[in-house]
């Protein structure tokens, strides 16, 4: 087993001035499940392909274990990759598909057989070994693609959106299967996805990327509760964090946040940081997670200074929870996530309160979270 280290890795494609991946530095620990996440074109797949050896590195160094592998062919990197379009070889049966990589490496037949059957057992596809890919369902194909990687017993697994071709139900199921499998195999895994739910549920650590640059690398909890900038805050979480432009003003010894339809008091701890950093009287962006807007009477009673009033434009009741699209608070709809039994109807005016202890404040120019950056 081995870790992976990228030092100032940059990738520039011919004819493009802007690097696809820019000065990427990261150490992935042995046995870690690392997820690269970000919007389309952010450079996450390119990074993975460089680690795999499918793309040349323009600048920087890449180590697998202690070995510099910039110029090492993919086959000699001891990695196994599962692609988004897991092209199973259509003329081979499942067994042959899984055995192909080992056959190329001239493994002994009995060793190939042992590895294929063991992986098949692990993936519960033993009964499919004689079938051709055409006769398999989407989920079964996906498991064969995983099996092809597992039999290699690599030091590092690389997975590029392996679940994106599956329907939502199967995706959820496979998500859990892959996590379980990787824990069992105790192998380093680098997983690329655009899906933040996949990232949050599978990764020991998540790297959020944008425009080829790492925005934040942290465990899921830190990423959700302590995003370093506006992009990470908006990317992680569903529904996304609400962003409300406004200003802090001092009134009667208290620091208040004022925006269209909002006039609430900041708790003293956070207020002091805002004062110290000189954000009083400056335009900022307040970040509020939908679940930090409350409708419960107990909360309203305990937080009279953070109460807001809004009209409900749309109420989406999912049963266990309800999303309220609130009008009149800033320029765009603010979304609140409340209890599904709250009984709130569309068109109703509601009284809510913001948990100001959990809000984030972003500098309007730099978009950095002032509580998470010095």
């Amino acid at each position, binding site marked *: 087993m081995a870790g992976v280290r990228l030092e100032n890795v940059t990738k520039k494609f011919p*004819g*493009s001035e802007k690097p696809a991946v820019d000065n990427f530095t990261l150490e992935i620990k042995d046995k870690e499940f690392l997820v690269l996440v970000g*919007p*389309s*074109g952010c450079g996450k797949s390119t990074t993975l392909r460089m680690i*795999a*050896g*499918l*793309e*040349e590195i323009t600048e920087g160094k890449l180590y697998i274990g202690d070995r510099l592998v910039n*110029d090492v*062919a*993919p*086959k000699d990197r001891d990695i196994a*990759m599962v*692609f988004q*379009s897991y*092209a*199973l*070889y*259509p*003329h*081979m049966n499942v067994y*042959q598909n899984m055995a*192909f*990589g080992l*056959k*190329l490496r001239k493994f002994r037949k009995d060793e190939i057989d042992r590895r294929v059957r063991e992986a098949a057992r692990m993936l519960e596809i033993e009964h499919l070994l004689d079938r*051709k*890919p*055409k*006769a398999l369902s989407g989920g079964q194909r996906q498991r064969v693609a995983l099996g092809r990687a597992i039999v290699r017993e690599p030091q590092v697994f690389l997975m590029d959106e392996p679940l994106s071709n599956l329907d939502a139900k199967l995706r959820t199921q496979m998500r859990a299967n892959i996590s379980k499998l990787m824990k069992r195999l105790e192998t380093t895994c680098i997983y690329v996805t*655009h899906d933040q739910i996949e990232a949050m549920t599978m990764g020991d650590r998540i790297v959020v990327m944008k425009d080829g640059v790492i925005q934040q690398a942290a465990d899921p909890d830190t990423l959700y509760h302590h995003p370093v900038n506006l992009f990470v805050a908006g990317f992680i979480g569903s529904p996304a964090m609400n962003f409300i432009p406004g200003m802090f003003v001092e009134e009667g010894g208290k620091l208040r946040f004022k925006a269209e339809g909002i006039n609430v008091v900041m708790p003293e701890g956070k207020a002091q940081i805002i004062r110290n950093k000189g954000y009083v009287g400056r335009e900022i962006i307040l970040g509020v997670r939908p679940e930090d807007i409350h409708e419960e009477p107990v909360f309203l009673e305990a937080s009279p200074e953070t109460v807001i009033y809004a009209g409900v434009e749309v109420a989406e009741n999912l049963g266990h929870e309800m999303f309220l699209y609130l009008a009149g608070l800033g320029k765009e709809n603010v979304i609140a996530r409340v209890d599904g039994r709250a009984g709130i109807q569309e068109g109703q005016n509601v009284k809510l309160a913001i948990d100001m202890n959990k809000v984030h404040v972003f500098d309007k120019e730099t978009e950095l979270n002032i509580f998470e950056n010095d």
Partner: protein
Amino acid sequence: MDKEKARQLEDILGVRVRLVTVSPQAWAGRGGGESPKPGDVAEFDQGCWLLVKRNETGLKVLEIGKRLSSVESRLLRWALSQRTDGAFLSTENEALAIRLGEWIEARLEKDELHAPLPGEWAARLSGGVVPMLLNYEHAGADAGQILNVARSFLSDLSDETVIVPLRPAEWLILAPDRLLMEMESFDREEEDPDGVREELASLAEGLQQAITGEWGGDCHVAVAEPVQPREELAAAAALLRETLELGRRFHPERRVHLPWRIHLEWLIGHLPEPALRRIAGRMHGAMEPFADPETAAMLELFFSLDCNVSETARRMYIHRNTLLYRLEKFKLESGLDVRGFNDAVRARILLLLYKMTKRK
């Protein structure tokens, strides 16, 4: 001949000796004879090439840092002929494949696309074949190793598969059409051309991934529907080469190229250069938005999904309204509302024209 032997020869001759692979064109360019045999020599100012082996990847030669005397030349030829392991001799099949490649190139040059296959091959390629064109460029990998991956990929069919070297780094792979039955997509009762095409695309994708998964590098594969090689081989090679060239030009992000996916590209690709320039000049304003790669990528995806807004937004991982906003912005910039059929066709053609004329 391995590197160690080349080093020993270097000691004997007292000059630099390297084992290198050269193309038949380079061999001919240095005055080497046509259809050379092991032991033949091509001379140039600073030295000579001595042919060791001829195979489907080119000519393996010893590059010797001086011209050989007649005695040295004869001795080396004799030494090569004494090898008993056959390593220096091209196999009968390889030699035949090379000759077939030369024959195909000559037919393509003379535009004789339906010329009947020469006698020596007509008997060997009597059944239908699935033709694939492999183009692979990578400084770090030996072409022979790449072809080994291709042969292993075709597994049980590899003995019946012919790999024909064409230009440098380009091979025509002719797999028996029994392959379709192996894929279980060939149903005599109810033929489904779309199903076969889908399977052929998977086959090409699989081959491409098998090669790059081992060696990395820039590997492109084109595949066509089965042909009868007796009269269609040159035509199939021409179709595949054109498909691959057009695919690389119009869709640089693709590695697998399929003739049934590039109709408009074919049409635009065949317009004469002056006509292209004239049209591009007239449509200059409407083409400007394509300079933004994100706009171009968005439209490519939108067109590939039959102008389906929801599906395009889903694949781009953006909200439907965000996509609508971007399409509206494109409409303002280009004057084309791609949600309507006529403007979508115009925009698609303009995008291809843009790739031909502006994006070099």
